[in-house]
């Protein structure tokens, strides 16, 4: 039953795709893409391109998580800090990653650190913003309770701030996951000679359209897999939240 619910819509979409495909060179049929998928990715590419990319993705994502939450908590807690830093952060947030890349290359070179940083530069924002907003919206009575019972400093952050803001932090982390994949592709459009993103872009430039779509399919599957994993973690972290009736879902 669960499988049916999970697969019904995708099946419908594939059917739709089937119906419209073939009309153009750029829209190969699902079968062609499926064939290309098998040929392209079940090979050494998996080890040479997909795994390193995924590794960088996870590294960048983790770094962005640490940074986003680490910055978000103080910014959310302090009105002054928020007023001071917000314009600067908004400034960087509005700069498109592709044009930020040259700057990052100046500072971090062209190898893995650069790519990880590019991923961080995109993943950071949803985590940071959500953390800030989550921290701002903490329950006042709980905040007072902490003050009364001398729950301060690190303990306050760990036991109250982070937990209380966790629903919103998780929202940010969820957003960042897919943005990370997108930025992984973008980072590999520069100074690369391998990687999942690079390969897709190369296919596109070489007009290997079925292969390109198979790469996109792989990105989607990667995102799906990671998000399923994420949901596991979330159910665990937010068990109190979904159980308590503070949230209904």
């Amino acid at each position: 039953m669960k499988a049916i619910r999970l697969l019904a819509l995708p099946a419908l979409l594939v059917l739709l795709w089937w119906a419209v495909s073939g009309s153009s060179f750029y829209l190969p049929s699902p079968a062609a893409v499926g064939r290309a998928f098998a040929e392209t990715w079940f090979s050494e590419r998996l080890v040479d391109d997909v795994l390193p990319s995924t590794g960088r993705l996870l590294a960048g994502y983790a770094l962005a998580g640490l940074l986003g939450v680490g910055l978000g908590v103080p910014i959310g807690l302090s009105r002054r800090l928020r007023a001071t830093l917000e314009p600067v952060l908004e400034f960087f947030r509005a700069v498109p990653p592709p044009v930020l890349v040259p700057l990052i290359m100046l500072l971090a070179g062209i190898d893995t650190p650069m790519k990880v940083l590019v991923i961080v530069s995109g993943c950071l924002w949803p985590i940071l913003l959500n953390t800030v907003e989550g921290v701002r919206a903490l329950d006042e009575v709980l905040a007072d309770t902490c003050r009364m019972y001398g729950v301060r400093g690190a303990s306050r952050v760990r036991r109250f701030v982070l937990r209380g803001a966790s629903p919103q932090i998780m929202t940010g982390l969820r957003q960042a996951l897919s943005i990370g994949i997108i930025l992984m592709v973008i980072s590999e459009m520069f100074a690369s000679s391998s990687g999942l993103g690079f390969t897709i872009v190369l296919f596109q430039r070489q007009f290997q359209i079925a292969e390109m779509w198979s790469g996109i399919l792989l990105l989607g599957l990667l995102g799906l897999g990671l998000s399923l994993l994420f949901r596991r973690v979330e159910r665990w972290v937010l068990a109190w939240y979904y159980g308590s009736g503070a949230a209904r879902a």
Partner: protein
Amino acid sequence: MIRRDGLLPRLGYGAAGLGGLLLLMEAVPRLGLVDERFLPPASEILATLAAQLGTAELWIALGETLRGWAIGLALAFCAAVVAGVVIGIVPGLRALTSSTVEFLRPIPSVALVPLATLLFGPSLGSTLLLVVYASFWQVLIQVLYGVAAVDSVAFDTARSYRLSAWSRVRHLVWPTALPYVMTGLRLAAAVAFILAVTAELVIGSPGLGAEIQVAQSSGAVPSVYALIVLAGLVGIAVNAAVRLLERRVLAWHPAVRSEVAA
């Protein structure tokens, strides 16, 4: 009671933050930490920007970009809010759509460039497709989490008074989700802007991105940074606008409440 931080002091803090950034951007190349030729000092960037602001071209380009941005953002926002609320409140729909949503979300807009050019060519349509695709998910996810955040007692209240589905959405779900939606709007506004610029950069439809692309391939480094700074400034302006909106629509929310009255 005293208001601790009024609007003016707040602007003051913001200005201080930006001033710090400018100083840093001036110092890094001046101290030779990076080569001045590749990262010009802030003063030079600003001078270039000032010169460019005097040309009509730049304003036309900016106008083009902002048009794509605004239309795309509006489309994505409306679509995502409607979709998010419907998925969030109709039982079963979430399970039905989740796999597809999670599959489509990580597909980079830039990978859709061939599809976009195929459908629309280097026109506003392509830009819109990319902008809408990218910013839609940002809002959607926020709305989904926001809808889930409805308090169970409040929800039971609405049910026991037999509020219709529409009233529930309007009076309960929407206000609850609003803080999440505002964050979504801020995220999407930036993403839409980024995609508008990127689309122009990649597809070549006219606008700020195309200007950056030309400046880049001409090796005009100060121009490139001037345009980037311009993009950043637009971002600051957009955020300020959303914050203002937030102050109005979320006046009741604890986060905003504590901000207004100390």
